[in-house]
């Protein structure tokens, strides 16, 4: 029982990260690899601050700001310096490794003897549920504002956004900052939960985030009126449960990443394939349309 409770708690912590990745991957259509660096950045910031005696909640706010700055850097590389989005993410992720070491001063910090947000009167799962639901509601509201709708429109159709007189760059900057801020918060909470922060804890985070989103969307997309944010959170929980099952079945922990990658590849290749088939059909129809239109023109 305790094992599954821990799995759900992990799922909730990573759900915050999945919500962040959701903004870049799903809304902005920007594969942002910098999250591999911002997740441990959050852990580093919170650990370093807590050791210095800062309130754990305040340290999470600082983690958000740190993540936003990292997101700004990715945006700067991509938007202002015209570096491709993948490479911009990789550069920031790599750079953050050194920064994380600097922030912590060493490669890992233990927080066992310090107070964290989990030392309050609420049980961890209740606390995390409240945090995740608050963030989800906040994001849902944000996506209904003028900013949020322009964000969605930008991922869809950048030309439209420019035509509406909205600065594409600004919206992208804000989106990246928000996304990385959330990932950083997730990392900070994770570190406080484990009472441990390590500079290498970001490895594979992007894959976990993508897996959550892809899981969530492919399983729940048939359900009407379910919001994408809900799907991302449920996807994160499901993903952790799957990993839990795999561990229970005796799979060595080291193999998990490979298994995840195979599952994602299959999910992307097969599950989203209807789109591919549709595309083929579409292009075929288009040709017919074009031909008939041309004939129409000649006849007219």
């Amino acid at each position, binding site marked *: 029982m305790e094992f599954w409770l821990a799995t759900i708690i992990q799922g909730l912590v990573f759900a915050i990260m999945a919500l962040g990745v959701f903004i870049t991957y799903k809304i902005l259509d920007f594969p942002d690899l910098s999250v591999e660096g911002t997740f441990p950045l959050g852990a580093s910031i919170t650990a370093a601050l807590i050791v210095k005696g800062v309130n754990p909640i305040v340290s999470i706010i600082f983690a958000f700001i740190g993540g936003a700055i990292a997101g700004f850097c990715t945006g700067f590389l991509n938007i202002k310096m015209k570096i491709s989005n993948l490479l911009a993410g990789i550069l920031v992720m790599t750079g953050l490794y050194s920064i994380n070491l600097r922030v912590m001063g060493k490669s890992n910090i233990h927080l066992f003897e310090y107070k964290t947000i989990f030392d309050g009167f609420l049980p961890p799962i209740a606390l995390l549920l409240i945090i995740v639901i608050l963030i989800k509601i906040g994001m849902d509201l944000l996506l209904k504002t003028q900013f949020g709708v*322009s964000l969605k429109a930008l991922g869809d159709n950048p030309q439209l956004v420019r*035509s509406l007189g909205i600065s594409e760059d600004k919206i992208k900057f804000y989106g990246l900052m928000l996304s990385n801020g959330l990932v950083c918060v997730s990392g900070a909470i994770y570190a406080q939960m484990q009472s441990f922060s390590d500079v290498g804890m970001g490895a594979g985070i992007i894959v976990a985030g993508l897996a959550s989103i892809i899981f969530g969307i492919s399983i729940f997309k048939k359900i009407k009126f379910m919001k994408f944010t809900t799907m991302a959170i449920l996807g994160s929980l499901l993903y952790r449960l799957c990993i839990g099952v795999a561990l229970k079945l005796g799979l060595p922990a080291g193999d998990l990443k490979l298994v995840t990658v195979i599952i994602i590849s299959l999910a992307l290749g097969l599950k989203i394939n209807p789109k591919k088939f549709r595309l083929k059909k579409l292009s075929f129809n288009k040709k017919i349309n074009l031909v008939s239109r041309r004939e129409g023109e000649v006849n007219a």
Partner: protein
Amino acid sequence: MLKINNMSKAFLVNGNTSKPIFNEFNLSVNKGDFITIIGSNGAGKSTLLNIISGTVKQDLGEIYLNNREIGQLKEHMRMGEIGRVFQDPRAGTASSLTILENMALALNKGQKYGLKFNKTNKIEEKAVELLKILDMNLENRLNDSVELLSGGQRQAMTLLMSVAKMPRLLLLDEHTAALDPKISNSILKLTEKLIEKNNITALMVTHNLQDAIEMGNRLIMLHRGKVVLDIKDEEKKNMTKEKLLDRFKNADDMFSDVMVLS
């Protein structure tokens, strides 16, 4: 209203040879003008609209909109006063958003976008009022995703969105070329109606000679980056397709086949 002074633009082909499109191009558009633009392929019709809207930047020259130099502004900074409809029906709307969200985006144009809610009751009322003009029953499908609409419906909506905030200038870039003839016709009628009703200054690029002659109060023909024909009002009213073709009989590369056959 719109003034283009000594504008030059060349594109690099294959990285080293430069292909001039415009050389010291001048155009002056009066307020309330509805200009149709025709010309052969590569005459610079679309490039002209791209330069006005800032998608492509000119090499030299100035562009004035209402006595304000906009030639150096970024695209999003000048589009506040310009509406634009593209040939591709998908280019003017965001497919994953609902009809209402798209309309709200257009109705909020020019405002400082921020954390205010995108759709308020006021916006919804206005959107319904506008969508009723289309007579496509879209006002009852406000929460449908735009993805579900046909090309014609999307183009009609794009047109509506581009004039929702009364732009000073409307740019139409072969906006009916991707539609079938029947829908294309109704979109053109709608275009005329919206432009006349709101007294909008408009530039419309078209491949269809007949439309170019019938619509608007001024016709411009571009050829190799130059205005080779510029007729207005009375003269334009008396113009027919045959006269036009006759006038340029000797220059056979001036009309593309599509134009002659349409």
